[in-house]
């Protein structure tokens, strides 16, 4: 059943779109990740212009994060103060990310930037995750238990020398506000140029750099993602008019159903096996994106309409 998407300006099959949402939703439910880093590339592979894919996915992530954050809110798993600092950073990052996005779009280089960002971030995060999970699986086979490192010991000395210290009661931390601000900014930039929530960077950063307790990490990260992707959606709407609400709602519909099923499957698998699987998938997307950059394309030329706002297609 074809549906004409008025903003993307193309006709897509409704079942294909809902199906893509469901598959990504299934995987994100199973692995407990946002899924933006899978959905955006899949949309691009399906023929959606990369700029529309990134902007629309921001909109979908807002919705997906709300339902996730609600669950964590009920369990009191959100550090609102920490989240607010991360949001301020995220807003700054997203603003500049969207500016860069708009500028590169007018130059015809936005697709390149999206691919490069995916290859670099998915490659490094996927590689690290794969290494970590394989090591955990091997250790378990040998029966090795790594010594526990206490939360306080994770902090490096330089972190305590930074100014603007702030107390975060819920996270039981007294650290410089600059750290979460910078992490938030990086995540904001990624949200604007990659169409991701940025949880895959933010969650490890919260655990290993900030030293937040794990019970508030995911909730606080989702809390930040709601606001930053919402802002990103508005920035992209204003700058490039590339947000397609209809596409976002259809994807969300599929994702909600898929996530329910995925979560049930996820419970049956071991943590390190899940992480290894997820890492492999991340690397697969990264390799696919990377191939597009290094292999000589069949068609070297591309055609786009130049409009006043610099919007392609």
């Amino acid at each position, binding site marked *: 059943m074809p549906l004409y998407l008025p903003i993307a300006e193309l006709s897509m099959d409704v079942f294909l779109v809902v199906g893509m949402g469901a598959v990504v939703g299934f995987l994100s439910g199973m692995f407990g990740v946002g899924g933006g880093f899978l959905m955006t590339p899949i949309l691009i592979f399906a023929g959606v212009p990369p700029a529309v894919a990134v902007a629309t996915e921001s909109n979908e992530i807002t919705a997906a994060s709300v339902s996730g954050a609600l669950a964590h809110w009920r369990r009191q798993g959100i550090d609102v103060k920490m989240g607010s600092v991360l949001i301020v950073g995220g807003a700054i990052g997203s603003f500049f990310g969207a500016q860069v996005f708009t500028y590169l779009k007018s130059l015809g280089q936005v697709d390149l930037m999206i691919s490069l960002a995916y290859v670099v971030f998915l490659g490094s995060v996927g590689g690290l995750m794969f290494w970590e999970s394989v090591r955990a699986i091997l250790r378990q086979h040998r029966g090795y238990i790594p010594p526990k490192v206490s939360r306080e010991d994770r902090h490096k000395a330089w972190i305590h020398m930074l100014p603007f210290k702030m107390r975060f009661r819920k996270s039981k931390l007294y650290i410089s506000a600059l750290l979460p601000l910078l992490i938030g900014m990086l995540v904001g930039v990624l949200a604007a140029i990659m169409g991701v929530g940025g949880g895959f960077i933010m969650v490890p950063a919260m655990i290993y750099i900030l030293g937040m307790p794990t019970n508030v990490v995911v909730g606080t990260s989702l809390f930040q993602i709601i606001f930053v992707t919402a802002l990103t959606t508005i920035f992209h709407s204003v700058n490039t008019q590339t947000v397609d609400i209809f596409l976002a709602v259809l994807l969300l519909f599929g994702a909600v159903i898929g996530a329910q099923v995925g979560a049930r499957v996820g419970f049956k698998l071991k943590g390190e096996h899940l992480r290894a699987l997820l890492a492999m998938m991340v690397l697969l997307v990264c390799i696919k994106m990377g191939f597009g950059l290094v292999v*000589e394309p069949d068609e070297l030329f591309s055609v786009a309409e130049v409009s006043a706002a610099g919007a392609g297609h």
Partner: protein
Amino acid sequence: MRIVFISLMTVLLLLASRPAGGLVTDLSNKRIEIRYSFDGAELILFGAVGSSAVDPVNDAFDVVVVVRGPEADTVVRRKENVGGIWINNDNLVFPAAPGYYAVAASRPLVDIAHPTVFASYGIGFDNLPLIARSSQGLAEPDPEFRQALYRLRASENLYRQEVDSVSLVAEGLFRTDVHLPANVPVGEFIVETFVFQEGSLKARNRIRLNVDKEGFERAAYDFAHGYPFWYGLTAVLVALGAGWLAGVLGKK
């Protein structure tokens, strides 16, 4: 469609039988509305040649129909290998490339008239006045870019040449199908009909065709482009509502 076709044919037959008739054409639909289910459109162009243009009964004639979509600044980019990766490195802007261009003819163009004849009327992709704008100013385009524009647009069914044919139905009557793909640009189209006989133009006429987003699609597009901030805010509110709903339903 069939009823439209028959009734139009009747009208045209009456027109054609009148001795003073020149060239008359009409489209089965002059206004194409792009709505949610839009998956392209098929139109029929009917025409009749009266005896003042050619003598359709006694002499063979040829018909060429050119459908041209709205012109727009169009950029063609070429990827080049820079440091191991393929990036858009070179580009050329065609300030007046039609978004749609289709040529249908009753016979292969080479059999109808000499190429210079087509060139003088601007018929055929090769005869489109496409001047390119590059960093060196206006110039005759690099043929590779021009060919790429044609090739890419043809692969999307937006440029069609020597694909569709005009069928000569009866004495002085002809018809052709106009195929508009789903990704057809919106705007005003010009449908030009040329009648050739023995290699020279005998009659021509043009009619207009409008393609536009309608109803909800129009409203959504106008909203997104006219009030982008409010559109973005709406998108966020829809997402918040949908996410909240999903969260509440998912809990049960």
